[in-house]
């Protein structure tokens, strides 16, 4: 009995070692296995659906399937840990959002550095942030809201999906630009937050385009502003931040990240795929149905933008009092 166990253990460990010493792959042979695309949010959410959308158009441009693997939890830590501990061979990627890539590092202790350990490969879509008020609200335009907020600083309440949500930070940036202060009422999730405002319990809502859509269509919410440079398709009558003179062109991007030490040749192949996928008609149609804005941004362009974004996010996080927990 004991002999059998010893032999078993020995052979298992030999197999383990031999498998691990496979040489690095030639870029020409890439891809030769399915690729995993993780997300920091639960299955069925917009991140997962975006991964799946990429996966469903990938076969046209990529010889291997791309599988969506949601790894929610720990404000992105679970998914990022998974990425860090995977091999830098171009078979594991992460579809990141500002929430875990830009905001979380300032709030949670993370055992890795964003710049140091990860590299963007390409952005495929983004969600726009909009600010709305309850339909019965006395504020008909964003200027009304700003004027009212100036009179009573820190009095007017707004609802958001979580205290560290990207939508909240977008609103805080806007308030900073407009010189006003609103009081936060956090909820657990975008739907409860939207319901609270649609039901008239909280005056202001910050959310994505799609989170406010059904309520706006029903006439329970009035959308006052979109954080974009151009008018958003779903809300053609709503002015943009740019038109009103505010520098809040902050989209909630969907960008694919990889381990920084992945071979550049492989990364550029994947970036190619992402570009084709993002411009694919079927992908565009799916994203539009979800209320997202498809569009490709190259790795280099995104990297430049990302560095700037992290700077001002760090400032806002400090201002709002959310910096690293004890």
């Amino acid at each position, binding site marked *: 009995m004991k002999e059998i166990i010893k032999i078993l253990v020995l052979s298992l460990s030999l197999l383990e070692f031999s498998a691990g010493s496979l040489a690095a792959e030639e870029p020409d042979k890439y891809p030769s296995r399915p690729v995993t695309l993780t997300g920091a949010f*639960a*299955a*069925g*959410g*917009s991140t997962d*659906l975006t991964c*799946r959308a990429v996966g*469903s158009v990938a076969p046209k441009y990529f010889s291997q399937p791309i599988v969506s*693997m*949601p*790894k*929610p*939890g*720990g*404000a992105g*830590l*679970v998914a990022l*840990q998974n990425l860090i501990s995977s091999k830098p061979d171009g078979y594991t990627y992460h579809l990141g959002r500002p929430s875990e890539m830009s905001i979380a590092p300032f*709030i*949670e202790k993370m055992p890795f550095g964003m710049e140091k350990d990860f590299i963007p490969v390409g952005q495929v879509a983004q969600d726009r942030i909009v600010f709305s008020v309850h339909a019965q609200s006395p504020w008909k335009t964003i200027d009304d809201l700003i004027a009212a907020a100036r009179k009573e600083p820190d009095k007017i*309440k707004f609802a958001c999906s*979580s*205290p*560290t949500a990207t939508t909240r930070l977008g609103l805080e940036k806007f308030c900073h630009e407009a010189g006003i202060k609103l*009081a*936060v*009422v*956090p*909820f*657990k999730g975008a*739907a*409860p937050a*939207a*319901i*609270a405002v*649609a*039901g*008239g*319990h*909280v005056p202001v809502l910050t959310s994505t385009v*799609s989170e406010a*859509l*059904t*309520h706006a*269509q*029903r006439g*329970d919410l009035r959308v006052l502003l979109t954080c974009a440079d151009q008018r958003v398709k779903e809300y053609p009558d709503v002015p943009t931040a740019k038109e009103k003179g505010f520098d809040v062109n902050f989209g909630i991007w969907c960008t694919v990240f990889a381990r920084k030490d992945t071979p550049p040749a492989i990364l550029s192949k994947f970036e190619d795929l992402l570009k084709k996928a993002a411009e694919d008609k079927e992908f565009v149609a*799916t994203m539009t*149905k*979800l*209320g997202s804005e498809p569009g490709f941004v190259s790795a280099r362009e995104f990297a430049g933008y990302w560095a700037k974004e992290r700077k001002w996010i760090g400032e806002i996080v400090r201002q709002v009092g*959310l910096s690293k*927990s*004890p």
Partner: protein
Amino acid sequence: MDYYSLILQGFSIVFQPTNLFLCFLGCLMGTLVGVLPGLGPTAAIALLLPTTFHFAPVSAIITLCGIYYGAMYGGSTTSILVNIPGEAASVITTLDGYKMAQDGRAGPALGIAAFGSYIAGTLSIVGLMFLAPLLARGALAFGPPEYFSLMCLGLTILIYLASGSMIKALMMAALGLIIGCIGADMLTNVHRFTLGIPELMDGVGLIPLVMGLFGISEVLLNIEIQVKQEILKGKIKNLLPNLQEWKDSTMPILRGSLLGFLLGILPGAGPAIASFVSYAVEKRVSRHPKKFGQGAIEGVAGPESANNAATGGSFIPLFSLGIPSNSVMAILLGALMIHGVVPGPNLVQQNPDLFWGVVASMYLGNIMLLVLNLPLIGLWVKLLKVPYAILFPLILLFCLIGAYTASNKIVDVYLMIFFGLMGYLLRKYRYEAAPLILAFVLGPMLEDAMRQSLIISEGSPKIFFTRPISGTILVVTILLLLSPLLPKIQKKRQVLPLDKEN
């Protein structure tokens, strides 16, 4: 509205061969997944969602609804047979259902669960049909103060869940509140009791908790009794409920249906809470409350009906307002949007095919599930004759896999094992786990609602009483808390004259 012709239109859509097949397939897959401990409706839908992507919208939704209902039906099977709840909504069924199984009445228990689920499911769909827009608007009127009051009401139900020592039941509730606090604080993001484990930032998952506390602990307890002996002693007497059991179950089923339906509409409440509330209500109105916890069929009929009715009710906010009332609905919302359907008040007019097709499929699905589940009862009962020594590794295995696949986190597996040990020790020391679960579910919701309300009211607690809905609920709560005292006073009054006469 000409409901008759609309429903016929809906049925014509469902009876297309593809849709018929998909409805059945959904129910079947849902049942199978629901039977597996730990994999409830949310996991089932999340896992099977990709397969529906390439279907037409109506077909996809029909399949998903079938899965949802199937999972709810399946969850009660393991609760009754092996005391391991399939998901949170079936926890309550273990209390009396398993006792019935141990007395050889597994058949009637399963039968009543199936029939009750069918009746409740059908009734709630009728409600959905006629009342959708009206009730959905009502749901919007519930803001944070209303939820606070509702949660207070919910917690008083605890008192009725206790079958043993009240002090110990309340201790479990307090423990449940504490466990519910684990995680990142919702307002300030401060980490509470996370012991440095990042995955705990999101709090303890309901599935590892329930499976560990009920499932694993059950196995641990059974191992030591006598592994050789079969768990179900005696012959299985009947496979179906007898007339008396039917009579006893009628009112619980009806009450459970109404209760579940209403609770399902409220975002956040859902099937689990509906089942808890139904149990408490049945115990309260029963002429023999002591029987609860010993195998009272009302304790199975009511909650099982309630959780299925809540399923139907939870569709209302989704279809009429586009608001998901629980996590399953959220996934369905995503599925709808992927197929280009934006739920909202216009859904019924713009996509009548979709709405009525789905409603018709729900009727059909419930019938299919009844037909599916009844013969299976015989099969399950036979399965239990397998010697425990062979059975228990499999049960544990499924619990482990269930916990892992539900969230893909190894931490959940360890949590489940930890709670398994804790559950075992709690039972040895004669504490009940049900109040813990209730407090665990309601506590965080209560705290969130309280803090949100206080921000809105800028610190004034008056908000809970001055708002009509919230105030009413609180008054009812206080009355409920005081009501146990009333019968005592009455009894005293009755006793005295009798004594005098003698």
